[in-house]
């Protein structure tokens, strides 16, 4: 009788004992929650500042094509706002819509805080610089030979010493990324991304960038 009973017991389906796993998981979750990062940290790549008056540092330029011009796109950041100028024909031209009015994009006081309009700068660069020259320029390596300007994709940012760092980051965003208005003009996703493949030394550009190589200096 007893033997038969034991035999029967072996075939009974027992529930899995989840208690130890539950113990483990309930301990792990608070610990991981504590150490979890809910904000994602990224980077913006910048070129080293020019120390002496020596030539520009590296980048896409072809020394065997002397006829190429330099665009010298410059964004000046002062306490009053942004001004933009470039040299499409060898002479510096201000990009302000109204001539002689400096700065072009004025910083506004919003709620007692000085606010710079990054989007306006982005739009200005896109409409006045990128769009008129885009057919003859490209950041694609294979089309480099047909480029008009050897420093296409570069932008110099001149900032006053007392400008808060977050404004510089805003300018970097405005020069690097396309504005939402570029949808339809630029094919693909409007995002500029740099990636560093594992084990490599160089960053590789991915996605659509407007003027991704920024060199910031003090004014």
């Amino acid at each position, binding site marked *: 009788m007893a033997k038969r009973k034991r035999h029967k017991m072996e075939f009974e389906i027992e529930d899995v004992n*989840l208690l130890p796993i539950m113990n483990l998981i309930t301990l792990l979750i608070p610990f*991981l929650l504590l150490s979890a990062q809910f904000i994602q*940290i*990224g980077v913006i790549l910048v070129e080293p500042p020019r120390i002496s008056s020596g030539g520009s540092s590296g980048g896409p330029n072809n020394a065997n094509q002397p006829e190429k011009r330099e665009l010298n796109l410059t964004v000046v950041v002062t306490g009053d706002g942004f001004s933009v100028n470039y040299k499409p024909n060898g002479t510096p031209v201000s990009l302000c819509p109204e001539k002689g009015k400096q700065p072009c994009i004025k910083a506004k006081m919003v709620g007692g805080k000085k606010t710079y309009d990054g989007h306006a700068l982005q739009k200005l660069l896109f409409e006045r610089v990128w769009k008129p020259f885009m057919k003859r320029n490209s950041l694609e390596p294979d089309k480099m030979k047909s480029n008009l300007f050897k420093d296409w994709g570069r932008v110099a940012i001149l900032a006053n010493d007392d400008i808060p760092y977050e404004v510089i980051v805003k300018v970097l965003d405005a020069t690097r990324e396309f504005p939402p208005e570029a949808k339809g003009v630029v094919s693909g996703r409007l995002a500029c991304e740099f990636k560093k493949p594992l084990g490599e030394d160089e960053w590789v550009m991915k996605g659509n960038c407007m003027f991704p190589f920024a060199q910031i200096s003090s004014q």
Partner: protein
Amino acid sequence: MADRMTSEEKARLERIEAKKAERREAAKKFRNDPLKITSLMDALTIILIFLLKSYGSDPMQVPQKKNELILPKSDSMSNMAECVDIQVSRTSIVVKGKAVSKVVDGKNVPSDELSTDGHIIVKLKERLEELKKKAESAASSAGKKFVPEAFIAADQKVPWKLVAQVLYTASYVKYKKFSFAIVKTRGG
């Protein structure tokens, strides 16, 4: 006896029996039913996997502190890579976890810690040179080329001058690439 029972009594007995059986059944059910935790386990496992995924994905973490080091927000999508990190907070400049210089009023490096032309932070220069030498010898023994790169995590409110001094110092020590740490505003 049985046939002497009226049909009424029979029905009553049957009802009692039925009730008893029902109660027995209910008691049995209550005893044998364990807590249903399968769905809870499912949820917990999913949470666990997500937390584990976010745990080790970033090569470097920047400890942010209110009124000291808050990174600016940006639309940049690029992720960081391993390199020398310089933290510029409102109170100090820290290189790889070691403080090299103080920051006064959340604005300036004391003038006695600057070089004579005011562009180079002397202690920072020494520390970066030391780190570069170390990394170079490590890279050469591994047969690799070393590209000195610096990762700068600066507070959003510090003046540009302070960051510029750090940049000048690092490029004086021949650091070739710089990346600014930001908090991503769009996912990806």
